[in-house]
């Protein structure tokens, strides 16, 4: 289990080699309003599970091909068989190497994730080789979604998505900010809703309440102007007489 605070020498080397900035930039907001969330510890386990299952499929496929082809080549000349075996060794070593790399990538993927909320905006940083930093203001948020599959439910993690206006696709371009694998989805959802409540005009569409209600000072000053104007009119009338 990778601990959040401790960075191994290998990890540091990877960060430096790939020029990954160690910390995300915090967007501007009111002082003291910034909250930084990280993916839950179970998110790492979940990613490892996904990694394991996908590699298991490939391994099964390899075994299947191995037996089928060995049987098919049983009467082939020795040279063909040796060539086939050599190919197999290459394929398996490439597979193992890639498996190790992707296993390590899960670790980085889990660690290099920040979900930052200020009182005005949110920023989501993720990725190692392909780095992404999304910035969105609460004024532009259209909807919030919380979703979790059965296994994610068991692991008590969920994804919180915030959508801005405009089409978005599953492969994820813009318009969606995803708090992936958080263990406190409800807390995050409540904070987001609370922020949205402060921005009643968030998203597109008419706001239900008038945002330009006259302030107290303006009313008072208006009354003074009225009184003065009236006095002036009376004076002018008096002068004419």
């Amino acid at each position, binding site marked *: 289990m990778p601990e959040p605070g401790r960075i191994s020498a290998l990890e540091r080397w990877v960060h430096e*080699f*790939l*020029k*990954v900035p160690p910390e995300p*930039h915090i*967007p*501007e907001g*009111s002082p003291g309003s910034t909250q930084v969330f990280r993916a839950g510890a179970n998110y790492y386990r979940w990613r490892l599970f996904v990694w394991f299952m996908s590699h298991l499929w490939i391994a099964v496929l390899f075994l299947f091909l191995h037996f089928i082809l060995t049987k098919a080549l049983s009467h082939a000349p020795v040279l063909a068989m040796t060539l086939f075996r050599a190919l197999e060794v290459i394929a398996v070593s490439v597979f193992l190497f890639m498996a190790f790399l992707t296993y390590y990538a899960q670790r980085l993927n889990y660690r290099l994730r920040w979900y930052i909320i200020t*009182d*005005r*905006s949110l920023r989501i940083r993720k990725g190692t*080789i*392909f*780095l*992404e*930093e*999304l*910035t*969105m*203001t*609460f*004024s*532009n948020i259209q909807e919030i979604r919380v979703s979790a599959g059965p296994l994610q439910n068991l692991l008590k993690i969920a994804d919180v998505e915030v959508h*801005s*206006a*405009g*089409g*978005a*696709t599953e*492969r*994820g*371009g*813009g*318009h*969606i*900010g995803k708090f992936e694998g958080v263990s406190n989805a409800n807390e995050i959802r409540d904070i987001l809703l609370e922020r949205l409540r*402060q*921005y009643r*005009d*968030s998203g*597109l569409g008419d706001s239900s309440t008038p*945002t*330009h209600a*006259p*302030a107290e*000072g*303006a009313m*008072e*000053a*208006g009354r*003074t*102007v009225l009184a*003065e*104007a009236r*006095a*002036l009119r009376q*004076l*002018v009338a*008096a*002068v004419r007489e």
Partner: protein
Amino acid sequence: MSAPIPEAIAQITRPREELLKYYILRAIATMFAFPITMLVLYFRYHTMRYRFDSEGIHMKWGIIMRHEIMLNYSRIQDIQLRSNFIERWLGLARIEIQTASGGSDSDMTLEGIPDHDAMREFLYSRMRGAHHPHEQATSSTDSLAGILTEVAQELKAIRVAMEQRNA
């Protein structure tokens, strides 16, 4: 609404030279299509022009296929700062800007911006909702009250002057 923009940003008109290096690497990655990709990217780099004014961004590129995009800061929905490790080696990053139009592909991608972090923060500061909702409201009504108070003072001065002439 349209406050003047920082000098450093107003001066940006061309992408950095590193962008051409990145384009060359990108073209090499396409292998056999290299001559075509290189040609397209070469002209894209050399015709790319930016203009940042107080309202929004103008960007244009291309000779045969000419593109010109204009968008207002206040229409920005979200900003993505993206980079792969090759771009980071060259000190580059893409700023992808989304407006509320359809599609998840970015509406405008700023490439080769000299100080992309500063640019991102600048765009963020011009986005709708980057400032506190009450900040503007109070300042505008405050100034409205101020104006009204001044009007009242003017009127009062007229009255006083007329009273003195009458007397």
